């Protein structure tokens, strides 16, 4: 905006409409003769004097700024709450023991607070999910951006986006009642709760994120690059894999990072399908507990406020928050890179 309305003389002269100069009070002049603008609805509100109006403008500006500040307050609130309660937790459990310990048994004796099993559980789910979502999402992005006719695209893309909008508890139900039984037919000895089933549905859940962000990045690759490659005699495969994909690489990498971050923060599907067994394993056939699943487990029980079990969810939450925050910052940094190059 180039015009600054606050620097403008605010009111009409003495010949203007009726106003209460002494008080600055509202005077109802709904049919304002000073503004008979064609096509513009008459100003319905009450008029104020210059000083009153400027004050009202300022008050409204301040109120709007306050609403904008809510998002800042949310961040501050999250950090303060997590750090505050975690400090209490780390008074009992040394930070180093927490980060390097390999046993997590907070709900029975002897209590041990080594977070590695939870961290590895989250990483394992994210790994399985990536193995599903990265190839499928990238293939879908290449198809939608380079091959699909417009009408096919207009059908496929919204359907993929529905996948992203389905509540995660629904994925959890489907993993538990459909995916796991199918897997148990194929893999003998597979338990009811396992990281594989949870990872597969989380992978399907994050697939649309990869497909749509990668496709955006590919769509941003200038047409001249493709045309140049075609003019040199490349086939579509060569253009897609040797020109478009490398040119869109930072956007594609960003989509992977953001999707993995989403998978690590994913909760309900993991709670339902992967179980509640904190163990340090990279075997996807095992039941594992993720950081998010532990937080849910504690909140489902009757943990008294202020106890060490209660405080432990804040420590785990803080770790979860930091891991996802770092990944999101990296992801968005990659996104901005391609936007700067081709914008």
């Amino acid at each position, binding site marked *: 905006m180039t*015009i600054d*309305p*606050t620097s403008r003389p605010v009111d009409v002269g003495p010949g203007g409409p009726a106003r209460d100069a002494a008080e600055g009070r509202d005077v109802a002049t709904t049919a304002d003769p000073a*503004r008979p*603008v064609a096509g*513009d*609805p008459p100003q319905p*509100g009450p008029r104020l004097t210059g000083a009153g109006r400027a004050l*009202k403008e300022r008050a409204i500006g301040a109120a709007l*700024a306050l*609403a*904008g*500040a*809510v*998002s*800042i307050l*949310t*961040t501050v*609130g*999250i950090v303060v709450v*997590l750090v505050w309660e975690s400090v209490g937790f780390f008074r009992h459990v040394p930070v180093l023991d927490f980060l390097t310990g390999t046993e997590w048994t907070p709900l029975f004796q002897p209590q041990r607070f080594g977070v590695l099993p939870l961290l590895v559980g989250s990483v394992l789910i994210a790994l399985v999910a990536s193995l599903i979502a990265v190839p*499928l999402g990238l293939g*879908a992005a290449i*198809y939608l951006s*380079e*091959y*699909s006719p417009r009408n096919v695209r207009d059908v*496929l893309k919204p*359907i993929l986006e529905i*996948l992203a*909008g*389905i*509540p*995660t*508890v*629904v994925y959890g*139900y489907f993993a538990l*009642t*459909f995916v796991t039984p199918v897997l148990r037919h194929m893999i003998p000895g597979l338990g009811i709760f396992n990281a594989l089933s949870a990872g597969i549905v989380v992978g*399907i859940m994050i697939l649309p994120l990869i*497909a749509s962000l990668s496709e955006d990045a590919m769509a941003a690759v200038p047409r001249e690059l493709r045309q140049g490659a075609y003019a040199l005699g490349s*086939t579509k*495969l*060569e253009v897609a*894999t040797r020109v478009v994909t490398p040119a869109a690489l930072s956007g594609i990498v960003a989509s992977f990072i953001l999707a993995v971050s989403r998978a690590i*923060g*994913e*909760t*309900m599907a993991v709670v*339902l399908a992967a179980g509640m067994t904190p163990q340090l394993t990279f075997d996807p056939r095992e039941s594992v507990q993720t950081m*998010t699943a532990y*937080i*849910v487990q504690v*909140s489902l029980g009757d943990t008294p*406020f202020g106890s060490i079990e209660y405080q432990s*969810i*804040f420590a785990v939450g803080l770790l*979860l928050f930091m891991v*996802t925050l770092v990944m999101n910052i990296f*992801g968005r940094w990659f996104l901005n890179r391609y936007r700067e190059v081709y914008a």
Partner: protein
Amino acid sequence: MSDPSERLLTTPPGLVRRRRWGRAFELVCLGTTVVGVVFLAIMLVDILIDGAGWLTATFFTESPSRFPSRAGIKPALAGTLWLMGLVALIAFPLGVAAAVYLEEYASRSWVQAVIQTNIANLAGVPSIVYGILGLAVFVRWMFVLTGGRSVLSGALTISLLVLPVIIIAGQEAIRAVPSSIREASYGLGATRWQTVRHHVLPNALPGIMTGTILALSRAIGETAPLIMMGALTFIAFVPDGPRDAFTVLPIQIFNWASRPQDEFRNLAAAAIIVLLVLLLSMNALAIWLRNKYRKEW
């Protein structure tokens, strides 16, 4: 073959093979795209088969019960509607005000840059972390105000969760209003607020509404933060006020799905059908709004 122009017209060596690879690659890519679609179809059909038979009248009028045949979703459905209503009341005005502030008041200032980065970061915070925030702030610190584990606490938490989505959608809608409209308004002597109130907001409203409904349709399926808030699962009554205890559909689904008996899992599937119908009708409403009020400037 001495004439170079003639050589150009023949097929270069290997082109047939390269084209064949290209065709195979296209099919692979199409295949990967279809996997997601097929998965979605299987999931929906499976849920329909499991749950459709349980969608009886008692299912909507009864409370959860130990006996599957007498169990219903009335308290959960009521809780979900209460929650959605409160979230709309809290998050819509806050989100629109923040979007107006960012686009019309703080445009291109350092304040906008800071808030914008902050909103982008908030959008990536796992929902369960909002649950932790809500548990500490709304359930415990503001106990006197919210009544503890109440539908109001839940609504405040979910409002913070969807706020980034509403703000971003609101900003896009406001940005789509051409600046000529603003300049005309200023040119006629309107103040900044008058311009916003009478010209920018009315023109941006359909876009804002669409974004808000989509945000609410995301909120309707949120489970983890509400479990953290202690939205109890065994609730046999409908909330009377914002300070009452409550449960919601996704938590009822979670509760039923985590039981080993098939009957309860089928109840979960039936509740999922209700949840998805609600969700899809909200999406349809959003799309209808967008198409009805689409403007070409």
